[in-house]
């Protein structure tokens, strides 16, 4: 990422911790002394809907919303949501840090007559989405975050692992990131979350993806 305005879009499913991740990333940018604006989603869509948080930082920020196809980075906790948001926000240079897995809703308003259509119509394999992403983005990081998080001891820290990877692409110091994480999580989970962050950071530094 260069010195211009950084536009980070965080997306996922309501309840996955998109708002919390947004708080961590924005606090890190704020602590590094930059102007910053964010926009969050609360209320109805937080009940399992598709949600996103916009974070913009740089010398001077006006709009809290990221303009079309101007995301510097997309951080996504669900691969299907990655697919949903790239069309509006990504360009060929966008750094994509995404879980390689996703939940597909078993139900949709597209289904007719209150019946799920035969042959699981509408079911897209996560691999198909991964293929689309691989074909189009040079700076793509598809991460088996749930697995790594389980190995660390708690699937809930998968978000922090992805934040660790994102941190590498920003000019913001590691110490500031750690402080931003500690500020936003329960004290008793601090060790685990720091470990998760450093695991992600290590991925970035060693380019394991």
């Amino acid at each position, binding site marked *: 990422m260069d010195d211009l305005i950084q536009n980070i879009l965080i997306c996922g499913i309501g309840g996955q911790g998109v708002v919390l991740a947004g708080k961590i990333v924005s606090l890190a940018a704020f602590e590094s002394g930059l102007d910053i604006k*964010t926009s969050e989603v*609360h209320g109805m869509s937080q009940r399992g809907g598709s949600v996103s948080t916009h974070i913009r930082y740089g010398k001077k920020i006006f*709009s809290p919303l990221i303009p079309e196809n101007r995301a510097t980075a997309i951080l996504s906790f669900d691969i299907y949501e990655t697919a949903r948001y790239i069309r509006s926000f990504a360009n060929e240079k966008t750094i994509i840090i995404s879980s390689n897995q996703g939940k597909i809703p*078993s139900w949709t308003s597209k289904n007719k007559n209150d019946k799920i259509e*035969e042959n699981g119509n509408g079911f897209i394999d996560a691999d198909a989405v991964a293929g689309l992403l691989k074909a189009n983005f040079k700076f793509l990081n598809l991460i088996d975050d749930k697995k790594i998080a389980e190995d660390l001891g708690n699937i809930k820290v998968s978000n922090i692992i992805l934040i660790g990877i994102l941190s590498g692409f920003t000019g913001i110091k590691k110490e500031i990131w750690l402080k931003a994480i500690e500020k936003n999580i329960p004290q008793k989970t601090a060790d685990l979350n720091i470990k998760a962050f450093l695991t992600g950071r290590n991925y970035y530094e060693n380019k394991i993806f």
Partner: protein
Amino acid sequence: MQYDNITGSYNSNALLTGNEAIASGAHKAGVYIAVGYPGTPSSEILPFLAKFKSAIVNWSINEKTALEIAVGASIGFKRSMFTTKHVGLNVASDPLMTLAITGVRGGLVIVTADDPGMHSSQNEQDNRLYAKFAKIPMLEPSDSEECLNFTAAAFDISEKLDTPVILRTTTRISHSRSIVSQPDIPGAAVIFKPNASYSEHLNKPYIKDIGKFVMAPVYAKKRHKAAIKRLEYLTDFSNNSGINKIEYGSPDFGIVTSGISYQYAKEIAPSASFLKLSFSYPVPNILIKEFVKNIKNVVIIEELEPFIQNEISSLGINLKGKEYFPRDGELNPDMVERGLGEAGGFIAYESRSHSKNNKPGFDDPGNILETLQPRLPALCSGCPHTAVFYALKKLRVPVMGDIGCYTLGALPPLNAMDTCISMGLAFGAAQGLSLTKSSSKKTVGIMGDSTFFHSGITSLIDAKYNNISFTAIILDNATTAMTGGQDHPGTGRNLSLNQSVSNKIDIKKIIEGIGINEIYTIDPYDYNKTFKILKKALESENLNVVITNRPCVLYPKKLDCGKKFEVLKGCPGCDLCMQIGCPSILTSSFFNPSGNKRIPFIDASCTGCSICKDICIFNFIDEIKK
């Protein structure tokens, strides 16, 4: 310079949401009482203010009562604030319209958080029209810093000009974070200390003034004249207070705007001249005339209604705005760019002009996106509302619904609620619909506990009074869930530490008090029993009430039964379990024995409510034995 997170130091900056900044501004102004009813996007203001421990901060039963509490506090010479979402101001509009002519004693600020784009609302009404309707002033902040400063200033304006003041935000102001210089932050050693602007006349003992507060015709006629006269003072203030500002840039191109639209316009056309309306009602007639005299092409950018446009046009100045920007939904930087492009003659957004014609450099992922299913919000895994809606779906009865998480019961696959119009509508609409006899089935009215307190009690009394028969269902999950788990009279808790002892109001006793004798209490985790009791209640010819008794799985704390369920081998893929819309039940990549259907699986987010086991009549769902 920077806000120290460890010490929470005063002399530093902070990154706050608009809502947090409003709370900080109210604290700075020495607000004495702050009340409201939760509603997205306004809900976080009162909890943040309560953390300062400097004011009496409480959730009220509904918006009308909240505003009336604020009015009483103002009559008692104290500063008061009322917070609401846009539609909540409709509920409080009765006291508002007359408060507008009585004026105030202690400063009274009404915060209305509008929701253009309807992120979490049933309409996108533009509450700026209330300011004009009530002839009262309105402030519109554009970022968190202004949220703080304008809130604090609003109390002064209220007292100085003897008027309630509306502070109007939108979702993108309330839920955006931006930097605020040196705000008070709760948690630090904050002592209740009214600032210097806190007027001296406050803290007086109560005195009567019937000419001001008894709006019988004889006095109201005089007060209405006073309110009309007040508009002149308010217009002077709008012109001269310095809150409304002209920022001269290009002499060829100017923008009149307010609120979040200002930020989008600055982003897209930074070199244009700006008339930023922060005190946006009444509009500053002199500043507007000056602006259009000095700038060649002027365009108005505003979300929703042509409010500024109509005000300016009533000055005899015709400017364009809604010709280029939609009247529905919210704006964003790209819509502003396109609209300005149509308007012509503006200075392009420098920093992005270099790649203006570039398409995003990847293949249009159209095919996959077209197949990708929309992700609608859904009831949570283990939500106690699920079983009730599934049973109602099976019973095929007309269901007059309401506003809350349970509105999601109207969406597929449950499809079991037929209305969502206003808060508290369900029991009134159930009465009306059953009177029409347009359905052969008994009508159901359904609402949550917080909604019942908000405005369901009155319509249930009305039904009993008029001897109307329908089945009223109260989904009592012991919280106001959709807005984030706020307390209400049924929880027995409230925000303010000054009132740590709140009384818990018993819903069942209220209903008994009305004289309704047929009351069923059900455990919605037992689907079969839930179905049976609902069927019985619907077969009865009485006005009866069914109350569910399971708490919300998210608030006040996450609940989990400690069990997990699985789909067993041999599942034929009949999809019955998918009909409850549980987010833990997903489509797997495996097929059924006959190879023509994908079978479901239950993932680790299962909270063990067991409803799906009850629903799978073929017994292919069972608890995972450890």
